[in-house]
């Protein structure tokens, strides 16, 4: 589904990504973790070309990301993204937020989009909030709406960039629950997160990133059983001592 082949990126002299390679198969749930500033967010944003990179290549369902011929719009329709701070369009109602891209980008029939949007809102438990504006919703509700907005494009893979980091503790669970259901339904997911509980429960694989390198790439069970690098073990101990 996604192939990372030696992806490298620099900001001037600072190398954010030092040749990252990984393979993510259909239906896999891959959690990307690692210390702050290690490049995990940058890496995930390279996949849908929100960030450019100078070295290596990324393939999404056979499409090369770093290529002049690639239709970025088509690429992004395949990969839905959820952001740390939700980024709902503040001037549009929740329903319009969800319907905008399917209408403008995929040019699907309006009735079908509306039905699909309402189904998605029901799925994330927000059907009664369809006509509200983002400001009237709590952080957790906004993030669930943002997930519905990404799903409205019928993506093949969902990318999550620290989806719960900006949330109050009591709202983290409601978002994780939606993500867990999504994973159970077989959605291919790649998720940057510090939620080790979620990783333990849902992830099929863990990528541990440190200083721009993928240090560990192993099944979640191995990772949490301590069969990982020394750096990752230190990270795990730290996260265990500082939950949330």
């Amino acid at each position, binding site marked *: 589904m996604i192939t990372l082949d030696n992806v490298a990126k620099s900001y001037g002299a600072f190398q954010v990504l030092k040749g990252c390679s990984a393979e993510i198969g259909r239906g896999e749930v891959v959690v990307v973790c690692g210390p702050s500033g290690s490049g995990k967010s940058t890496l995930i944003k390279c996949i849908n070309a929100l960030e450019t990179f100078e070295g290596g290549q990324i393939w999404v369902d056979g499409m090369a990301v770093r290529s002049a011929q690639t239709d970025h719009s088509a690429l*992004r329709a395949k990969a839905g993204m959820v952001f740390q701070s939700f980024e709902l369009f503040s001037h549009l109602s929740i329903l319009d937020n969800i319907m905008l891209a399917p209408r403008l980008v*995929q040019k699907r029939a309006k009735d079908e989009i509306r039905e699909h949007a309402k189904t998605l809102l029901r799925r994330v438990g927000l059907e009664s909030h369809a006509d509200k504006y983002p400001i009237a919703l709590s952080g957790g509700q906004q993030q669930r709406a943002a997930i519905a*907005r990404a799903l409205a494009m019928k993506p093949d893979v969902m990318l999550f960039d620290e989806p719960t980091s900006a949330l109050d503790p009591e709202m983290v669970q409601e978002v994780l629950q939606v993500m867990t259901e999504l994973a159970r339904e077989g959605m291919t997911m790649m998720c940057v997160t510090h939620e080790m509980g979620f990783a333990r429960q849902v992830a099929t694989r863990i990528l541990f990133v440190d200083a721009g390198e993928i240090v560990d790439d192993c099944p979640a069970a191995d990772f949490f059983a301590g069969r990982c690098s020394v750096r990752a073990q230190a990270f795990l101990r730290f996260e265990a001592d500082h939950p949330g």
Partner: protein
Amino acid sequence: MQIWSWHGFFTYLGSPYIFRGALITVYMTAVSMVMGFLLGLLIAVMKRSQRRLLSWPARFYVWFFRGTPLLVQLVVIYAGLPKLDIRLSVMACSIIGLTLNEAAYLAEIIRAGLNAVPTGQIAAARALGLSERQIAWRIAFPQAFRLIIPPLGNSVNGLLKTTSVTSVISMEELMQRSQILVQDQFMVLELFSVAALYYLLMTTAWDFLQRRIEHYAERPYRRQQQSAAVDPIELPVTTQDAR
């Protein structure tokens, strides 16, 4: 000669000649504002462009039209265009001058608005596959517009009065018509008081209109659920919208 003539004041206040002058002022303001806004939008977008081929002409435009007096610009248009064999009415020259001048100021206001649109929402729109053009029209412009309504209101208010500068190229708007009557009938205070009253009426009408526009644009940004309970100060405004 008496100091103040109420009779003169009310005569001028009811004078169709002066009233039509005021209508011309409103007309010039409306047309120049709309055209200046569209031109200003184009210049603002050009000025924000990464490409120097676009940003430099825009920077030059703003530099030039903000750096020279409107009065000079009007005279150059009025006296210069006929030499190029372009003959336009005084009204057309006035509107061209006001539009070109206003666009330079509006471009800076619009640019500030565009800069204030959250970059995260632009990234989200990109991640959903929207094209740069779609992002501009669907996300950036609507949000920027809401942010710039107060300074835009300043511009409309200013322009209502700035139109009087077109009297130098003999445009017969409110101020010029008042001056014409002054030269004939010498009631300086009475006439200019009437003119001032008209300007006040026009700016007041705009104040009301601006509040309506602002109220409409702020709709998505009111917390409908809590407005009545949490914010008693906004109660009269928000309750009529709360569902």
